[in-house]
């Protein structure tokens, strides 16, 4: 683990944000984590960023809050988060990882549309973080590799959500088209 101090701080703030139902703050914390992870490629930072982002999405959707599984999911998420923090404070990285994974693994015990919703939230959280890493200047393949997803998923998602800025431009399109015309003449 490369960013223990930073992760610890993020998790403590995330715990408070979750208790206060503050999805905006959770997203902000997730973005801060992925920013650091783009440089360090630290898997724990990425995993924290994805989990926190997914939690932010879960608490902001009202339509599932009246489902009977919802309160338990959030209650357990808070417990696992607390345990993850405690284990990281003791420098027990393995137990920290296990507790963090438990937040997501709760989804496995669910069923019906709430399960589908949670699964989709975690999948999109992963793709959202991948998009951010890509926007931070990391290549598509490197991003896919670090997050353990395929380039297909990434490109499919980027296309719908990605943005290309003037900084992404290297050569004028007129030059490219002229060149293409020349080699295909």
């Amino acid at each position, binding site marked *: 683990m490369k960013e223990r101090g930073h992760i610890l701080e993020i998790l403590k703030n995330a715990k408070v944000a979750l208790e206060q139902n503050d999805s905006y703050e959770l997203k902000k914390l997730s973005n801060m984590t992925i920013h650091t992870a783009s*440089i360090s490629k630290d898997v724990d930072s990425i995993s924290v960023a994805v989990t926190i982002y997914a939690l932010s999405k879960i608490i902001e959707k009202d339509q599932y809050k009246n489902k009977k599984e919802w309160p338990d999911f959030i209650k357990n998420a808070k417990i696992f988060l607390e345990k993850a923090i405690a284990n990281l404070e003791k420098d027990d990285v393995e137990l920290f990882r296990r507790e963090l994974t438990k937040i997501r693994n709760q989804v496995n015990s669910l069923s019906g549309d709430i399960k589908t919703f949670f699964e989709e939230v975690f999948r999109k959280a992963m793709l959202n973080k991948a998009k951010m890493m890509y926007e*931070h200047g990391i290549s598509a393949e490197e991003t896919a590799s670090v997050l353990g997803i395929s380039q297909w998923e990434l490109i499919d998602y980027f*296309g719908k959500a990605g943005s290309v800025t003037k900084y992404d431009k290297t050569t004028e399109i007129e030059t490219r088209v002229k060149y*293409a015309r020349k080699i*295909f003449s």
Partner: protein
Amino acid sequence: MVKALIFDSSSIISLTLNDLLFILKPLKEIYKGEFFITSQIKRELITIPSNIKRFELEVLMIKKLIEEGIIKVYNSDINELNKEVQSIMKIVNNTFKAKGEFIKIIHEGETSIIALRRILNKKNYEVNIIVDERVTRFICENSSNLQEILEHKLHTPIKKINNVLTEEKCTVLRSSELALIALEKGIINLPGNKKEVADALLYGLKYQGCAITREDIEKAKKMF
């Protein structure tokens, strides 16, 4: 001189997701050369996604192009290629530092395009590359600006450790330019005038992964 066009995975993915793979066969006939991918790119295109149901059909479509020999997997000079890949990756991924750490910006498949280009150049091929992916394009066309670009994107000071990274000095094409040529050559026949079809094609590709700006699309349309 033998001609060769090397594709990266992002360009093939963009073409596939837009149902434009059919343009490759007639384009290859016009090009009168080889269309290559590396084994690393094949892995990205076929092996990794083959168990993802969402992309099963797309993988089969690419497999068919390989079986028909329209796209060939470059299987010669494997040791030389791998050596070149490692050497390029070592340079690129050990050039920029942020917060005391080297930033790993490029992976094996993307690097293999540059490596194969160098190998084929040595064999007197006339080589062109098709890359939709942004970072690889920077390395080929504008590596001197990479520091500034990374600083802008990461919002943090970036230190350039060495000047070993040099530009490949080549013009990279994207799936968007291939589609425009296919339109110009009458390979793509869709209702509407060429400007309208170009607009539809370029936005289709943009929304399926090709890194092209709106400004570029507007400029491209004016060329028709």
